[in-house]
């Protein structure tokens, strides 16, 4: 039954998901061919080069954020509609347990978010893998490698793998907030949004607190670690702390979501 639930969850949002991601990849290819391939890093004036790169980077960051938000909205609406709106009358009367419903949503949601991250990674790779960019980068490679403590490709792969892993926490936190919202029948969506903002605030506060406490905030010297270390050390230190925090919070959120689904679901 779990497999069937996952199949229908994936199928429900597949068309829009594929369309959004195909458009993003097309935009990346378009941007690379029409703009990035034409950048001349050697003969252009610094000002015109900086302007062009700033415009392209801003545009692509906007597209990446929009794509990520689009994928997130797809899984959020699927979870809410399928379990807590009128479609819930069918979902909750299928011969499957609440646990199976929750896992099908976690697995399908994670698959979509992880796939979205892969497509974003592919899009970025399309943008920066042109010969002109690679040649231009080679002139500053030693400094970047020294500062990062590893090659930029190793750094990018590590960051990419972390992002793929972090998707699970995004999915569980989203479902947790929607489920908490169901405890307030009169204001379900409002309370789900409130739960989302409060949870994010707590996560940000804890992340910052831990980063400062362990001296992983750049330019900040703590009692534990002295200043003057490479940027990568701060980044990886922060990521390691975030990962631990993420794992602990995700487990807690999963347990609470499971309990609410098992004992508190009231479809009014």
């Amino acid at each position, binding site marked *: 039954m779990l497999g069937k639930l996952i199949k*229908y969850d994936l199928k*429900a949002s597949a068309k829009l998901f594929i369309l959004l991601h195909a458009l993003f990849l097309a935009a990346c290819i378009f941007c690379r061919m029409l703009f990035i391939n034409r950048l001349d890093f050697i003969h252009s004036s610094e000002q015109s080069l900086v302007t062009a790169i700033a415009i392209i980077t801003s545009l692509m960051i906007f597209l990446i954020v929009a794509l990520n938000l689009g994928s997130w909205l797809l899984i959020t609406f699927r979870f809410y509609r399928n379990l807590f709106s*009128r479609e819930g009358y069918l979902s909750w009367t299928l011969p499957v347990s609440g646990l199976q419903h929750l896992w099908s949503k976690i697995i399908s949601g994670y698959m979509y978010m992880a796939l979205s991250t892969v497509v974003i990674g592919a899009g970025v790779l399309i943008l920066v893998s042109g010969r002109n960019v690679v040649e231009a980068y080679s002139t500053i490679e030693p400094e970047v490698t020294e500062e990062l403590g590893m090659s930029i490709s190793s750094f990018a792969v590590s960051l990419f793998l972390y992002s793929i892993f972090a998707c699970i926490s995004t999915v569980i936190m989203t479902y947790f907030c929607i489920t908490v919202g169901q405890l307030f029948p009169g204001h379900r969506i409002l309370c789900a949004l409130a739960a989302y903002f409060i949870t994010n605030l707590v996560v940000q506060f804890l992340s910052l607190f831990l980063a400062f406490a362990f001296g992983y905030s750049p330019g900040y010297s703590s009692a534990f670690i002295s200043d003057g270390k490479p940027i990568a050390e701060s980044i990886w230190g922060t990521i390691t702390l975030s990962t631990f925090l993420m794992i602990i919070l995700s487990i807690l959120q999963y347990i609470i979501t499971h309990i609410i689904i098992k004992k508190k679901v009231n479809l009014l």
Partner: protein
Amino acid sequence: MRSILECQGLTKKYGDFFALSNLTLTLERGQIIGLLGPNGSGKTTLIKLANGLLIPTDGHIMINGLAPCPDTKKIVSYLPDRSFLNERMRISEILTFYSDFYDNFSMERAEKMLDALEIDRCARLRTLSKGNKEKTHLALVMSRDADLYILDEPIGGVDPAARDYILQTILTNYNENATVLISTHLIADIESILDRVIFLQNGQLALNALVDEIRTQYGKSVDALFREVFKC
């Protein structure tokens, strides 16, 4: 054989309001039962509790001896009082969905009913008229070989001709060992098919009697008795 549905001291509260209050009730197999009562009497709450869509505040409800769970959902076929399907789905996709999840779903029976209604399998649900949507919902629910059919307002929003079709569909498709629980306000329309009626008032049981008993004991039709009991 176990009762198909049993409630013991069943209570459901919304804030300070008792939607159901200490309800004790047993439904036997092989009957068509009318669940009747004015708005807010607790009919839909009882139906939702039987389907595991609400959690009781107190007491318990058992289907075939079990609290609502995946095993009870296998034997209960439920028609909610609202559209419950993804309206972007095509009729053929909905049929496959039912066939995937319910072992007791008869594709043949469903196709036969949809053919009689001349409903195109390629059409999306949202393109159907309100009446055809309701008939499609009912066809899906009645195409299962369930032990308990729970129909919440199955004839509420359709014209008299469609009502006849729906009642006919119920009568011709349920297994005689199964129980059909129908909640409705339109008593006169369904009275002829009912074996038993349950009156709910303010979340409590007001009457649980065979239709024949009502006729002989009170000398009235169910509709007339309902109007008398729930007179405003």
